[in-house]
Structure formats: structure tokens, C-alpha cells
């Protein structure tokens, strides 16, 4: 059997891959599907009947829900068996995150506990720390929180002022400081707290128990959404942290924080899927029930457009989430085969895909924003009523663009990481750009693509050329000042984000067709057609925006022309394609793509 060829993180810009070499949601096996349904079953039996009580933050309720999900094993999906977990793959834990994503505020408590709450100890804890904490985190007996952000250290997480001073007897760190916006903080028993030791300029991480003297927890923040999720400020006044509770090495905190964030960003891509699918089902249920002018509103084209677009955004995100998760699993397996321990392999495997993680975080959160916004619109006045679930979904969605690194920070990361990866790989962006410019002036290569997927592949290849061309031009022009050029970098990040998601969808649809035939795949081709068509226009505009923002650059005109050529795609009857997508949704009366 031919070995799977995995693209390394960021390589998608330079290389192509086969449909057979990526993981798609349709590859889920029976056990994975069962785990997904168990999560759904949990939400249906334990969470949905309590949404109002959860949002009122009824004393003890969220804690008990976490514990109940722990009884089902759902807090330990990714934790090894020796700590009472189930040692499942990254894809499987992604699947659980996706399913739980439909759980409104509960979903935030769940992600925070199983992600930023548990993973620092799982990946960086020593054996004693893992033995002591993990089984109780897995059972839900001890809910967990992650305390990085401070009043003056948000996006700039390293600017934190919290301090830990080693006690004279060398047995404790004396911790002082203030953390804010701490999810699960109101009831968590275990916290990972970041602070600087002594005169260090860099962070260290500590495992702190909330019951220790000197910890003061403020009342709950009043929030726009995810009202049921606990969010508090925490103060540390001379808290004695035993030295054995230092997590990882002194000064390793920032690295820990970053690696946990990579994971969180990827997972956020999954979480938004669960929320989006649920909201789409609610939207179409309403569109199939509500009549105006004697017709179901779902029969109006204006509503069909929204329904179709909700599906498209969700399907694209999903294709990208699982392609990337599949890569992460393969990377972890390879690293273990090379002799790495599982925790280390997992951290490295995920870190390899930091670029994709940042991109998914942005794309996914914005996709969900679109879905919930149009859901409110489809519900009309009822959507604005605080009594419907879509109102809650709308408010709850908003946080996703802010936490796990704001979308601005992540957009910058996409461009930044791409440039760094290119450098590291010895790929000379500047030379590449010159080559393309020369190619522009020389003879045009005019290969007519053959076949549906080949044609789409050609488009995406061209989109990649634009991204690389722009990166080369701006690296050359701005050199070290490049990272001040945020407007231009955002244009480039948007291009990279859209071409990666488009390519992931292309490969998925191709794999679906290979497995199940053209008839079955035709609705998915509609999704791909519309997205690639829109993406081409969007990349054209983003590319031109970037070029037009450059002063004193020769050949601006010829570059615009080149961008036009590289974003020219065959016309598609997008109205018919969207109508077919909406009609399937209307017929199924639920998200079933």
C-alpha cells in the first residue's frame, strides 16, 4: 500500500495533495459516531431542559453537569488510560468538542475544563502531578480553569504582572497577582496560573488549588452571551504554592501557554461546528413552519439564500477542521514512532499546525457569526425575542472572535507564521515573487484544465500564487517593518485562509465522489462551486487592496492584471446551486450534509 503523504504545517501553500491523503468527516468509524451521539444524547437529556437555569448560573448546576459528563467518560476522551481516560485520537476528541459545541454555555465550561483546564497538566505535568490531578479532572470531581489573562495583559499575554517569589525555606512560591476573565473560575478547584518567578522576564506556570488561603474570587462578570459560563476575576494574596506545583520548568510558561492555545484554536474550529449545525436546524425548522403571504418563508428565495449560505460556511469549516485534525493525528503517530513520549508528541504534533489552527479559529468563528446572524434574520421578530434559542446562539457566538487569541491576533499569526515557515524551509518568497513578475511579462502558460476537480485545482493553485506573490512583495518592501503593515497583512491572511479552506473542501468533495459516486457528490459540488466562485472574487479584491496599498511599487498595473487572471474562474449558476443546497436542507428539515 502506498503510504499516505501528509502535508506538514503550512506546506499547503507550496504543495498539493491527493484527496485520498486527507481525513474527511465521512471517514468516521462506528465508535467515533457513537461517541458523537453520546455527547448529543448528554446535551439532550441533561442540558437542553436546563438552559435558562444554566444562564441564571444556578448554584452548583454547572459543576454537577460537568460531573455528569465525567460519569459518562466525556471529560477524559483524550486522557491516557492510566489516568482514567480513554486515550482517543485527536480526531475523536475533536468530534466530542464538535458535538458539545451545540451546548451553549455548557459547551464553554466543557471546552475550558477539558482543554485549557486539563491539558497543561496532561502535557507538562510530572508523574506525581498527573497522578494527583488528572483522575479527578477526568471524573469531573475537580473542575479546572486556566488563568493567563490579567487586566494589563490580554493579547499581550507575556506582559502579566503576577509574581511568584521562592520562600526562604525553598518550599513554596509566594504568589501575588490578579487574573481576569477566568472561565470556570467561580467554581473550579484546580487552576493553571501563569506568573513570573522572582525577577524573570518570562512566565512560569503553576498548578494552584482554589481552596488555598489568600485566593479571593470576585463575583461573576455580567456578560453579553454565554451567560451560564462562569467568568470571574481572581486575586492572589501571598498564596503559598508548594514548589512541587511548578508546572514544567521555570520560565517555560509562555511556551506552555502558546502550545495550549494552538490546541484551543483548533478545537474552537470544532466547537463552532456543533453550534452552527444546531442553529441551522433551528433555522430550517422555523422556515418550514412559518407562513407569510400564504407561503412557508422557506419557499422565498431570500430565505433560501441564507439557508444555503449557512450550510456552505459550515461545510467549508468542517472540511478544514477534519483535514487538519487528521494531519495532527498522523504527525503525533509519526513522532511517537520516532521515539517521543505521547504528551511531547502531541504538543509537537499540534504545534506543527499552528498556522492552520490560527486560520481555523478565525474562519470558524466568523462562519458561526454568519450562521447565527442569519438565523436571527430568518426568525424575524421571533429571532429578536429573548425567548428563542437563536437569540442565545447569537449572543453566545460573539465570544469566539475574542478569546483563544482575538481574530486580529490570529490573522497576524497566519501571515507571520507563513513567512517564518517559508524562511525555515529555505523557500525564498522574494525570489518567487520576482519569478512570478517575470513570468507575467513573459509568455503566459495556457494549460486548459480538464475535468471538474482538475479545473478547481487549477484555480486554487492560482490563488496560492497570489498569496506567495504578495508575501514576497511585502517582505521585500517592508523588511523588518512588515509587522506594522497590518492592513496589508490582513488582506494576505484572508487570502491564505480562504484558499486553504477552499482546497480542503475540494479534496473532501473529491474523496466523497471517489467513494460514493457522482450522483451522491453532486450537492457537495454545488457547495464547492459557490464557495470557489465567491472566494475568487474575494481574493481578487483582497489582492488588489494589498497591491493598491503599496506606494512606489513598479508594475502595479501588471500585478493587478495578474491577480485578475489568477482569480478568473468559470461562471457558475450560483442561484441554482444555492437553491439546490437550500432545497435539500428544507427537505431534510435538519442539517444533514
Amino acid at each position: 500500500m502506498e503510504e499516505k503523504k501528509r502535508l506538514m504545517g503550512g506546506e499547503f501553500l507550496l504543495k498539493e495533495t491527493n484527496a485520498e491523503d486527507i481525513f474527511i468527516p465521512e471517514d468516521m468509524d462506528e465508535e467515533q459516531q457513537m461517541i458523537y451521539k453520546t455527547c448529543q444524547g448528554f446535551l439532550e437529556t441533561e442540558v437542553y431542559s436546563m438552559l435558562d437555569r444554566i444562564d441564571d448560573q444556578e448554584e452548583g448546576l454547572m459543576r454537577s453537569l460537568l460531573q455528569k459528563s465525567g460519569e459518562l467518560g466525556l471529560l477524559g476522551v483524550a486522557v491516557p488510560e492510566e489516568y482514567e481516560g480513554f486515550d482517543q485520537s485527536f480526531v475523536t476528541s475533536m468530534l466530542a468538542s464538535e458535538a458539545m459545541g451545540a451546548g451553549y454555555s455548557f459547551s464553554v465550561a466543557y471546552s475550558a475544563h477539558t482543554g485549557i483546564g486539563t491539558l497543561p497538566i496532561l502535557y507538562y505535568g510530572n508523574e506525581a502531578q498527573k497522578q494527583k490531578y488528572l483522575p479527578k479532572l477526568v471524573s469531573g470531581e475537580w473542575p479546572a480553569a486556566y488563568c493567563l489573562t490579567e487586566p494589563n495583559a490580554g493579547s499581550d499575554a507575556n506582559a502579566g504582572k503576577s509574581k511568584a517569589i521562592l520562600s526562604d525555606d525553598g518550599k513554596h512560591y509566594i504568589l501575588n497577582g490578579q487574573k481576569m476573565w477566568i472561565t470556570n473560575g467561580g467554581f473550579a478547584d484546580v487552576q493553571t496560573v501563569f506568573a513570573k518567578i522572582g525577577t524573570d522576564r518570562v512566565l512560569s506556570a503553576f498548578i494552584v488549588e482554589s481552596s488555598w488561603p489568600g485566593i479571593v474570587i470576585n463575583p461573576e462578570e455580567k456578560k453579553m452571551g454565554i451567560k451560564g459560563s462562569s467568568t470571574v476575576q481572581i486575586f492572589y494574596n501571598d498564596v503559598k504554592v508548594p514548589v512541587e506545583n511548578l508546572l514544567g520548568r521555570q520560565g517555560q510558561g509562555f511556551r506552555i501557554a502558546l502550545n495550549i492555545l494552538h490546541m484551543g484554536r483548533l478545537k474552537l474550529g470544532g466547537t463552532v461546528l456543533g453550534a452552527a449545525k444546531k442553529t441551522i436546524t433551528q433555522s430550517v425548522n422555523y422556515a418550514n413552519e412559518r407562513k407569510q403571504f400564504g407561503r412557508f418563508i422557506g419557499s422565498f428565495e431570500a430565505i433560501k439564500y441564507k439557508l444555503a449560505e449557512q450550510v456552505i460556511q459550515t461545510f467549508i469549516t468542517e472540511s478544514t477542521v477534519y483535514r487538519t485534525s487528521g494531519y495532527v493525528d498522523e504527525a503525533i503517530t509519526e513522532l511517537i514512532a520516532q521515539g517521543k513520549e505521547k504528551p511531547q508528541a502531541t504538543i509537537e504534533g499540534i504545534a506543527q499546525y499552528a498556522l492552520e489552527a490560527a486560520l481555523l479559529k478565525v474562519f470558524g468563528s466568523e462562519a458561526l457569526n454568519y450562521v447565527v446572524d442569519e438565523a436571527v434574520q430568518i426568525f424575524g421578530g421571533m429571532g429578536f425575542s429573548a425567548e428563542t434559542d437563536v437569540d442565545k446562539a447569537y449572543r453566545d457566538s460573539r465570544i469566539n472572535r475574542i478569546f483563544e487569541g482575538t481574530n486580529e491576533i490570529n490573522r497576524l499569526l497566519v501571515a507571520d507564521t507563513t513567512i517564518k515557515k517559508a524562511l525555515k524551509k529555505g523557500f525564498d518568497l522574494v525570489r518567487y515573487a520576482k519569478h512570478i513578475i517575470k513570468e507575467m511579462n513573459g509568455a503566459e502558460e495556457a494549460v486548459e484544465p480538464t475535468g471538474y476537480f482538475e479545473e478547481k485545482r487549477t484555480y486554487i493553485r492560482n490563488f496560492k500564487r497570489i498569496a506567495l506573490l504578495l508575501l514576497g512583495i511585502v517582505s521585500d518592501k517592508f523588511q523588518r517593518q512588515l509587522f506594522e503593515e497590518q492592513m496589508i497583512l490582513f488582506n494576505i491572511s484572508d487570502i491564505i485562509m480562504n484558499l486553504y479552506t477552499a482546497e480542503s473542501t475540494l479534496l473532501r468533495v473529491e474523496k466523497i465522489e471517489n467513494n460514493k459516486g457522482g450522483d451522491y457528490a453532486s450537492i457537495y459540488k454545488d457547495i464547492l462551486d459557490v464557495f470557489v466562485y465567491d472566494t475568487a472574487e474575494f481574493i481578487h479584491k483582497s489582492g488588489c487592496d494589498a497591491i493598491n496599498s503599496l506606494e512606489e511599487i513598479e508594475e502595479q498595473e501588471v500585478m493587478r492584471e495578474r491577480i485578475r487572471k489568477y482569480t478568473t474562474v468559470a461562471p457558475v449558476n450560483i442561484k441554482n446551486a444555492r437553491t439546490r443546497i437550500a432545497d435539500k436542507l428544507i427537505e431534510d428539515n435538519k442539517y444533514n450534509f
Partner: protein
Amino acid sequence: MSTVPDTTTKIRFAGDGTAFDVTGVQWIINPWDELSLTRALQLKEESNGAIEKVTVISVGLKETEPVIRKALAIGADEAIRIDTAPLDAYFVAKQIAGSIKDDGFDIVLCGIDSSDYNGSLVGGMLAEFLGIPSVSSISALNIENGEVSVNREIDGGKEVLSVELPFVAIIQKGVALEPRIPSMRGIMMARKKPLNVKAPVEADSLTEMISFEQLPAKAACKMVEEDNVKELVDLLHSEAKVI
């Protein structure tokens, strides 16, 4: 235990309306059977080892195995699949009877009907083929000091019976509150539990499916103000034409 389409499935018929179109259908455990299984597991847990095991048996082709494994994940100890398509109630009851008549069992629990064809026939026929009693419409099933008692829903009330083993318990709502969700541990263990495939016994099917028809599309609901009886009567008369 039968495998049925998920209750939110959009039902479509293939070609000329003589067959159910299964494309895209999600399969689940028949809800009544799921309740039966839940109660069986509870009884086993409460029995302090007196109940040796809970076996699920299903008549169906290989495609039904994921649903059967879900029953194992929920907690059944073993499963039997009789490898043939379930043609009708008579055929299914024959298959189950043929398979279990020589195995020791005390109680056969089965759902009162299956949520797809709603025949309500298998349980009674099965008891007949096994030559043992059956009790239908059971809303509670208890074992205390080795005594088995059941509650039955009857017109205007409830009947409590004490029963001798073995018997077929035909289960309806009430016997257990919520079906169980398979836990991670259950899911992991399911792959290690036996799922025995048995060849079918000789049996006829006594029915022939002639055609299926879709229900007429549901008309929109009309709301009438609570004090406007006249309008209600008018509508029932002139629009709905039922009075």
C-alpha cells in the same frame, strides 16, 4: 430488538412506492426496545448477581450491527444477530423463537411495537411459538425476593399481576424513565463483547407489501382566539369540513 429509522427521518419511498427508500437514513434502536433494555439492565444491577446476563437478539442483516453494538455499549452482555432481513412479524417471531428456545432464559422483554411498522405483533406471537405466557402493555416490571410483578395499563386504571417465569414481557412507556446513553467505557467495552451471528431458521413470511403512500402534507395550524367559539365552529364546518 429491532433497528428502526431515526424518528426525525424524512420518509421517502423508492420508485413505484413498494419499498422504503433507505438512502441517508440514520438507524436507531427501536425506542420501546431501548426502554426494555434499560429496564433489563436496571434489574440486573439490582439483582446482586441473581440475574446472570442480559442478551439482545435482533433479526437483521449485517448493516444493523452498529445499532446492535450500541446496545452492547449501553450495557447488554452479549448479542445475537439472526442473519436475515426481517420480513414481517410472523417471520421475525419465528426466527427469535427458533434461536432462543433451547437457550435458558427467564424473561424475554420486547417493545410493544416497533416505531417503523407499528405492528404490535411480535411479542404475542413469540410467546405462542415458545409455548409460554406473555403479558402485554407492561408499564412497570419489578422483581422482589424472587417474585416478579408487572403493572399493566388497562382502561381507566392499572392492573398489578404477579407472574411466573419464564414469560414474554411486552413493554410500553413507564417501565424505565430515560433510555441510557452509552458511556465512553461502554463504547470501548462493546467491541470486546460477543456479537454472535446465527443462520436463520426456515420460516415463511405471511404478508406482502403492496404499496406505501405518503401522508398528505400537513396543513398550517390555524389559531382561533379562545373566546371566539363561533369562528371555531365555522372553520370546523366550512374549512375542515368535519362537522
